[in-house]
């Protein structure tokens, strides 16, 4: 379980302070897919970075499985990060390594034997549907394939959690859908708890169980996706959801119309 308590983050620049997060309280249950949505600058990227302490919170605590990781020393933090996978908008693969060696990379660094690392990597590539591209290089792959490799790499160390920072924002709608389906499958088959950061409501709608709406550094609303979607209470949630709801109903009617035409 991931628990954030009274989490705050302030960036200090030379002449002023920027509040990125203010009094964030959240808990992510084991086995669920939790979505965090907000507009650019709402603080969602900072928030997800506080979960594996890529960003150090200015105040408050982060509990992972009951342990306060803000008090971890460097060594425990490194091993903690291996149990929390993370994927990004820009994939961040190592261009000079093949697909296979990208996936074995975190294993090599943590001292796993080459043969074992290879075996594990091939398993994961099969899971993400890229067994046949093991010897390719990232530059030969499409965006969706790159993100699949990144997912395989993030899962290499058998993490309990997977953080997705705008993981589908650079992808087209079809690829987005297939990546989201993959994430859902990973969640269901491997039992990995997933935290999804996005600015797109349809991402939340498609895979998340619960959602938190972030607005101006604070949580504006939180709840089950179906509830928030059906009855958004905050201004920002309505703003994010309503056009999407219209879009979805419009898509439904238009596909019906198409069928009728056929």
């Amino acid at each position, binding site marked *: 379980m991931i628990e954030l308590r009274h989490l705050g983050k302030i960036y200090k620049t030379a002449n002023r302070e920027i509040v990125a997060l203010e009094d964030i309280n959240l808990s992510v249950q084991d086995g669920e897919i939790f979505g965090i949505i907000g507009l650019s600058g709402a603080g969602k990227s900072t928030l997800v970075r506080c979960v594996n302490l890529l960003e150090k919170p200015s105040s408050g605590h982060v509990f992972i499985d009951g342990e306060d990781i803000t008090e971890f020393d460097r060594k425990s933090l*490194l091993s903690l990060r291996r149990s929390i996978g*993370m994927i*990004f908008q820009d994939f961040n693969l*190592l261009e000079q390594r093949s697909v296979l060696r990208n996936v074995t990379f975190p294993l090599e660094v943590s001292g796993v034997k080459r043969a074992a690392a290879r075996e594990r990597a091939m398993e994961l590539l099969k899971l993400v549907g890229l067994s046949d591209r093991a010897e390719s290089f990232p530059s030969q792959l499409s965006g969706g394939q790159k993100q699949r490799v990144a997912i395989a790499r993030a899962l290499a160390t058998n993490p309990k959690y997977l953080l997705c920072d705008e993981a589908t924002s650079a992808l087209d709608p079809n690829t987005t859908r297939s990546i989201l389906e993959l994430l859902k499958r990973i969640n269901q088959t491997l039992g990995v708890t997933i935290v999804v950061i996005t600015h797109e409501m349809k991402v939340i709608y498609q895979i998340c169980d619960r959602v938190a709406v972030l607005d101006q550094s604070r949580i504006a609303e939180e709840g089950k996706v179906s509830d928030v979607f059906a009855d958004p209470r905050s201004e920002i949630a309505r703003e994010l959801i309503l056009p999407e709801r219209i879009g979805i109903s419009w898509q439904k009617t238009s596909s019906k119309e198409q069928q009728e035409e056929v």
Partner: protein
Amino acid sequence: MPDLGLDVLFKGKNFARLLGGLGIALRISVIAILVSVVLGTVLGVLRQRENLILKAFMRLYLEVIRIMPQLVLLFLVYFGTTRSFGWDLSGETASVIVFSLWGTAEMSDLVRGALSSIPGHQYESAAALGLKKTQVYLYVVLPQAVRRLIPLSINLITRMIKTTSLVLMIGVVEILKVAQQIIEANRMNSPNAAFGVYLTVFVLYFLVCWPISVLAGKLEKRWG
């Protein structure tokens, strides 16, 4: 066919002398390049630090060396230090000093550029994989930085080799000076020697610099 004056090359030890001159030019450049690559890398990494004094100092150093023509630097170090500090530097030592100062400045800027061109999310995602700081540099940042650095530093290296032709101005008898001597010595019996000898100098410089470019191309391709 016009007389290109190539016959001069085969008189006595003329060709061997030219090669000897090339050797001196290369000795100066190789030492200076080695010093520049090592010191330049160290300084380039240091310039990443948020230390204002260090930054200001490095900036000043870089600008001074860049603005000053290499020839002026050579004169300053060779003639200037003799009168003012009483240093008795040989022409070659002075050349090595100047070329190292120049190369280090340029190299540090290339390294700084290559390092800062690695986007922040690369550091972040490496850290997210549980890598230590040294591992982040070793496995993620450096391989990418080196790849960006290669074409730029090859350019610098060939520029340094070519610019060593200036050191004849402080009395170092390198390839160009030897060429001039050969031409002068044969002015009467082979007045066309200038063309043939300088052509040979050109070919020799080319033979030195070209393999470096080829190697760079290969490395780029392999890592690209």
